[in-house]
């Protein structure tokens, strides 16, 4: 499988945040993120850890462009996100970011294969047959090709999460973001998911940014960003 022709310069910055502040305004104004500044380079496997409520998920949603209500600058692939329209941001999410959530969030109306294909069909970079072929490739890589024809709600939790990872990979994103991707899985499935991430990082030089409070998960990544009270305290 060829996921992406990797650029030779390994230090290329994929994602950069500069002085990001975020406030919750309801019911009272509370600052949840304080001056967050860091960057993620091509090929890095980064985990963001911290206690519940430290703002790590909030940060992830800002980095993923879904939350636009913040101060500071966010650059994805060297491109400033400020001032982009909702449609442009959707396009960036579609093309450049792959998501894996705590819950699988597959669409029960569709088969596994179709679920994986959807973002690819939306991107329209390849014709439908090609998108299908690529989806099958990714399912094979993750060892779940035999589930392709099943409906999403017929799968087990671990299988669903692997389908979600395949979906995240369909458009060759420059970064995969995960919000507690193993948070809802047992030890065995957690390990499987972690191994997949590790494999993606090592074999395909896939950049990953995973938010987790699982210390053993974080401990095995290249780089750990630790947060507390909305600030990065240790890197």
């Amino acid at each position: 499988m060829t996921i992406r022709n990797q650029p030779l310069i390994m230090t290329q910055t994929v994602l950069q945040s500069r002085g990001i502040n975020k406030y919750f305004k309801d019911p009272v104004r509370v600052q949840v993120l304080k001056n967050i500044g860091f960057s993620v380079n091509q090929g890095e496997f980064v985990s963001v850890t911290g206690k519940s409520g430290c703002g790590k998920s909030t940060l992830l949603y800002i980095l993923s462009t879904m939350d636009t209500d913040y101060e500071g600058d966010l650059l994805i692939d060297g491109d400033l996100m400020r001032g982009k329209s909702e449609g442009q941001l959707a396009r960036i999410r579609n093309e450049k970011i792959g998501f894996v959530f705590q819950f699988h969030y597959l669409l029960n109306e569709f088969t596994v294969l179709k679920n994986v294909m959807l973002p690819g069909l939306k991107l329209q970079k390849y014709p439908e047959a090609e998108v299908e072929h690529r989806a099958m490739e990714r399912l094979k890589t993750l060892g779940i090709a035999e589930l392709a024809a099943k409906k999403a709600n017929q799968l087990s939790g671990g299988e669903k999460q692997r389908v979600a990872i395949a979906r995240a990979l369909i458009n060759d994103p420059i970064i995969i973001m995960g919000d507690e991707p193993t948070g809802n899985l047992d030890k065995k499935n957690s390990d499987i998911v972690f191994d997949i991430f590790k494999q993606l990082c090592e074999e395909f030089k896939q950049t990953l940014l995973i938010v987790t409070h699982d210390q053993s998960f974080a401990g095995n990544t290249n780089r750990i960003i630790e947060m507390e009270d909305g600030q990065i305290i240790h890197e």
Partner: protein
Amino acid sequence: MNYKLIVDIARSLLLARWRQSLVAAIGVTFSITMFIALLGFMNGLNDLLDGLILNRTPHVRLFNEIKPNPKQPVDQSADFKNSHNFIRSVKSSGVRVEISNSAAIMQALKTDPRVLGLAPKITAPVLYNSGTIDITGAVSGIDVIAESNLFFFSDYVTTGEPLDLKNISNSIVLGKGVAEKLLVDIGDVVQVTTSKGDRLPLKVVGFFESGIRDFDKVQSFASMATTQKLLRQSNSYVTDIQIKLKNLDQAPVVAKEYAQLFQTDAEDIQTANSQFETGSFVRTLISYVVGITLLIVAGFGIYNILNMMIYEKMDTIAILKATGFSGGDVRKIFLGIALTIGFLGGLLGLVFGFLLSLLIDQIPFNTAALPTIKTYPVNYNPVFYIIGIVFALITTYLAGFFPARKASAVDPVIIIRGK
């Protein structure tokens, strides 16, 4: 824009809740069915009632009104030119009711491109004599063929053969009411006396039933030649020229023009029968109001079902947005669902509406007043069907618009974090 994908997703969501979708579609179907049937029936009735009078009324009628001469001698005197003249006891002058130079006028009318056709007519007040009684009435001298073509004369001859009027000399078609009073049958002879005292025996060849009873109690028809003979007039004698236009709305203008041109009185159909227009308009208005009300109710059904679907599918919407579908895409998906319900429901409604119309068309409807009508009248004007489907689409679009907007505004972060 990838419409194939949008349609695909919309269809999957629609099929996932096919029961609710079906209920919503049935709501639209029911409304459109009733709308079509109601409009068809109402307009059928309109056509029937209008036809009772309007079909038999010329669009423009040329005649000479009996009235005082507008140019009294005193007005023409130079001495009183600047005075206001009061004249008492002015009498209508003995103007000729005959249209002078009628042959030339008819020739001219036939070349007018606005004119569909014309039929000359002679009206003659008469007395029908039967034994010792005299019944007042009127005989119209008509050109049977022109009268049938333009004013459906033969439709209203319920007994006998209308063409006999032309083929048998000295024949008459009696109004049903007249015939009942005179106790005559076909083949009998009635004596007719004109206002000048001339008497002529005429053979009864048919009965005429217009649907307006008072009319049938006085009116009878004879051919032009017979009437001219009855009145002892030459064969150029014509008192009315009835004109049917290609476009009824032109009648007032044309009437004014002809009055000027031919130096006769001219009356247009709008002036003669203004109340019928009003009646038709009100009935049509009622059908539209009822139809639209039904559609609005169906629209609320669609609105509710879409709203429910959006709450159920919050996760789906959130994940679509997270993986790169924009708010616009999501809105299109839900509008697509609404319009599919509207289009399919509406289409089915047209079919059922047509079937219901056919059914109404089969219900017997016999009334002495309307001899040519055997079943309830229905109008199958395709315009109603077009309006029906357009209304269905507009209503469902509006019903889908707000839920779709709500769906497009779903914030994926709130949904995804909410778990």
